[in-house]
């Protein structure tokens, strides 16, 4: 299979923007080639068996609240009623997709969204400030600690925001066809804080 092409082109060509103290206030990089599977339970009554099947067959925990649960290199997000996303770095040699399909059969619909999102990692002391300029939910660590997940407009584009840790550090899941525009907005918002762009994170 050929390589996967990012939607961002040269937008994240390595460079620094804005005031440059010894260390930049924040950094932005792409997480390329993620695998994203949406799991939608058919009915309320299917949730418990689904949870059981994923735990038994794949050792995965389905979160009950809008938080992220990590198991090894797999993260599960609760994104809507009866709906979750499973995210990991793409591994073409892995049979996870087939095992997932077998585990959810009869309980949930499985939809591949792997190419449907561009994933960005925003890290550094000023990263919360940047996001707060673009979105209206309260991202203060009291209200949005590590592990929290929210879907909310970031500027004009609906993003899924995952608080990774108290760095703070965030993963942003952007619709692929709007990602270029959304990242331009992020870059504009971040420049005042001193900013290192580029590179990729695994």
């Amino acid at each position, binding site marked *: *299979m*050929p390589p996967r*092409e990012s939607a961002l082109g040269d937008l994240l060509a390595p460079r620094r923007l804005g005031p440059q103290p010894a260390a930049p206030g924040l950094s932005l990089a792409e997480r390329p080639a993620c695998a994203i599977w949406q799991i939608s339970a*058919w009915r309320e009554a299917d949730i418990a068996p689904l949870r059981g099947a994923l735990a038994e067959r794949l050792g995965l925990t389905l979160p009950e609240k809008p938080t992220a649960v990590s198991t090894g290199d797999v993260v599960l997000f609760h994104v809507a009623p009866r709906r979750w996303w499973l995210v990991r770095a793409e591994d073409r040699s892995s049979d996870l997709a087939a095992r997932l399909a077998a585990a959810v059969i009869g309980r949930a619909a499985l939809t591949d*969204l792997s190419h449907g999102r561009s994933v960005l990692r925003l890290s550094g002391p000023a990263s919360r400030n940047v996001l707060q300029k673009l979105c209206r939910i309260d991202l203060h660590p009291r209200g949005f600690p590590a592990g929290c997940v929210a879907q909310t407009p970031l500027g004009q584009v609906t993003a899924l925001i995952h608080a990774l840790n108290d760095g703070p550090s965030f993963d942003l899941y952007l*619709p692929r066809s709007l990602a270029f525009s959304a990242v331009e907005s992020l870059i504009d918002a971040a420049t005042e804080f001193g900013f290192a762009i580029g590179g990729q994170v695994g």
Partner: protein
Amino acid sequence: MVFDDGTVSRLADDAFYVTTTTAGAAHVMAHMDFHRQVVWPGLAVEVTSITDQWAGMALAGPKSRDVLARVVAGDDVGDAALPFMGVMAATIAGCPVRLLRISFSGELAYEVHTPADYGTTVWQALFTAGESDGIVLYGTEAMGTLRIEKGHVAGAELDGRTTPADLGLGRLASRNKDYIGRAALDRPALADPLRPRLVGLVARDGRSPIRSGSQIVADPAATPPVPMQGHVTSADFSPMLEQWVALALVAGGLERKGETLYAAYPLRSETTEVIVTDPVFVDPEGRRVHG
């Protein structure tokens, strides 16, 4: 009323791949979500937008099958294997693709869909394969002309006031089963034979332009208020017919075929004498698309 148009492909017993217009996508999704969440909450069905997941491209024209055959690894894409309106999974340049033999262009044509990060790879493979046949790019302007020549309705005709019958699509509405909107279509005003219905128009002199938005009248010299017979919805110069052609909604529709009317465009003080025709100007038997 018709509010969008698109395609439905059946991928499995319980899986469907649906396309819509860009402008109508959110409306169609909301319509489906409303019905599955509120009207029929007991049905086990999920709907997800996968607009960002797939890159789609159209390969059209008499040589499109030859070009496709050069790049599709291993599979037969001949007429029997992939008939008009057929869907097939295949591989191009190592990328998984979905082939839909359908096109708004009215030509022998295919839509090639692939997961979005492979889009450029598949595009390049198709373009390279077609170079020896003189493949060219075509954009939305060209598509606009092609679809008008074929009488395919688009946003200008789907203006929220037209029914399937108004657009000549009445045969797509089932007579055997119920569907959302069926009862509404029986309302007297929506079944009135005097409703404006889709026709084609050509200029009587074979060369004057016809403007979209023109009012259709029977006598341009009449004292105002002049009764409106309808309006021109879409118009363009047809390279195939070498003259302007137009789609219009006219009271009485194709029963007025052959009649002379006037397309009045007061903004430019223009009036064009037009003849009512069938809305399909090119290849009405569909020989190209079924080729």
